[in-house]
């Protein structure tokens, strides 16, 4: 499986008469794109707003952030499976990406009805934020979706609109030669090297939403609770796992880092994706044990394991670490830490098998980077829930805030602490 990934850097972005990319300059025809979005009768109103690093602006009601991508050769399409897109396996042929710009989907539509389906995060464009996509301009797609529709149709409408914008921006590169071209292929490597896998754990909204089709992080469009998936890393590089946020998932630094050591320190033999937030002990145990078994069956003697959510999901993740170690697969656990303010240990369940841990810090719910000053402008909902866990109280979104609400799940940031 060979994937060519062409990068078209965006050094300058302007609103203009036609959407096109030329030598690093991206021009966006906001009115033309708006008309295309509104051709979907489910969308009542749409507006495009460009925001730049250093702007005194905060974006709330953020549902996803997308990197503009297009498949120019080979099967499938970027961000497969979501909103009815093709489900052919991706990871082959050639894809193009625009770097240095992201599409931010903004709509006051919960991800699903039920616990944790609420939107309480935000993007702050103040300088120095560790959130990777705030380092460059973002195109906000601010949507008003027909409130008479049910929650899943509203989600489908909003995300379809964001995908449309991402598609139209990326389409500007289809007939061009990319200034940068990378090739990803797990070529034959030294058979004497050990084998390593990446196990990526993703929260499923199935049991909190009581729906098989709730909108959330999707694998080929599926958000439901499923047994482990065996994926080629190229599929991840093509967006096979997307939403919340697609930008982070498609640019997952663990995948790129493991690729860079392929044939050098180890042979990278593939990715295993598991769903977390099963609701019984047996289901959680099966998930972890099967993930470890698949890793072992692939001949792996090492695994990097990351996960993307909170305490409930931590159980499958840490149990996968344990199951891998018990199968003879050395496990490296990439995890955020609980805030000391909670009074608990840094890891919910510190099992002895978790011997090699990479901490990505404490980002969630104000424990991370901050405080943040008041801003001049808010895009999206004008107030924020004060306490994301209890849903108690609201604070003005424009006001000063104690910190960002973002967790680094995959190691994007470079902040480190040394004990000496």
């Amino acid at each position: 499986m060979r994937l060519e990934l062409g990068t078209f850097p965006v050094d300058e972005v302007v609103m203009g008469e036609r959407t096109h990319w030329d030598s690093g300059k991206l021009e966006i025809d906001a009115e033309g794109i708006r008309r295309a979005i509104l051709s979907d009768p489910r969308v009542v109103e749409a507006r495009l707003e460009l925001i730049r690093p250093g702007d005194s602006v905060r974006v709330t009601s953020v549902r996803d952030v997308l990197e503009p991508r297009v498949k120019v050769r080979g099967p499938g399409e970027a961000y497969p499976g979501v909103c009815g897109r093709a489900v052919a396996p991706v990871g082959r042929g050639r894809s193009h990406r625009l770097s240095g710009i992201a599409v931010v989907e903004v709509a006051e539509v919960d991800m699903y009805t039920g616990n944790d389906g609420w939107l309480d995060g935000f993007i702050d464009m103040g300088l120095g934020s560790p959130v990777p996509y705030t380092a460059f301009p973002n195109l906000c797609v601010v949507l008003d979706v027909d409130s008479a529709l049910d929650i899943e149709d509203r989600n489908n409408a909003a995300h379809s609109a964001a995908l449309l914008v991402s598609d139209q921006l990326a389409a500007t590169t289809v007939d061009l030669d990319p200034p940068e071209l990378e090739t990803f292929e797990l070529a034959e490597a030294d058979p004497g090297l050990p084998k390593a896998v990446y196990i990526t754990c993703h929260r499923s909204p199935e049991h909190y939403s009581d729906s098989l089709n709730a909108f959330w992080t999707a694998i080929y469009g599926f958000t439901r609770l499923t047994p482990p998936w065996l994926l080629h890393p190229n599929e991840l590089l093509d967006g096979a796992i997307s939403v919340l946020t697609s930008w982070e998932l498609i640019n997952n630094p663990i995948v790129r880092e493991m690729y860079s050591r392929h044939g050098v320190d180890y042979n990278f033999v593939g990715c295993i994706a598991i769903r977390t937030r099963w609701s019984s002990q047996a289901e959680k145990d099966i998930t972890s044990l099967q993930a470890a078994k698949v890793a072992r069956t692939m001949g792996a003697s090492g695994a990097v394991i990351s996960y993307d959510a909170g305490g409930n999901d931590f159980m499958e993740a840490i149990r996968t670490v344990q199951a891998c170690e018990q199968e003879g697969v050395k496990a490296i656990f990439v995890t955020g830490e609980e805030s000391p303010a909670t009074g608990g240990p840094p890891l919910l369940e510190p099992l002895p098998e978790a011997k090699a841990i990479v901490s990505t810090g404490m980002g969630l719910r104000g424990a991370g980077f901050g405080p943040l000053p008041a801003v001049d402008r808010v895009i999206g909902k004008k107030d924020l829930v004060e306490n994301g866990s209890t849903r108690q109280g609201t604070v003005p979104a424009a006001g000063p805030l104690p910190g960002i609400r973002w967790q680094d799940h995959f190691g994007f940031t470079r902040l480190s602490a040394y004990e000496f």
Partner: protein
Amino acid sequence: MISALYSLALTTGAPRIVKGCRIEHVCGNPALGPEKDREYTRRIVEMAVSALQTAVTSPTLFDPSETSAKEPVHAS
């Protein structure tokens, strides 16, 4: 402690743990229908009451799905 996710209760050191069903219905299982659900709930609660009367020296798991008395499982 009655817990659907009893592995966590064991490793964090709860002394007596009764296996519950699921996060969303710890003390019963509506899928069983009203009669069997009530019976199952009763078994869990009775197991919890009997656990309270059992001396333990380390985190100990009690399984209400077992019909005959078995050795309780201890955390290693």
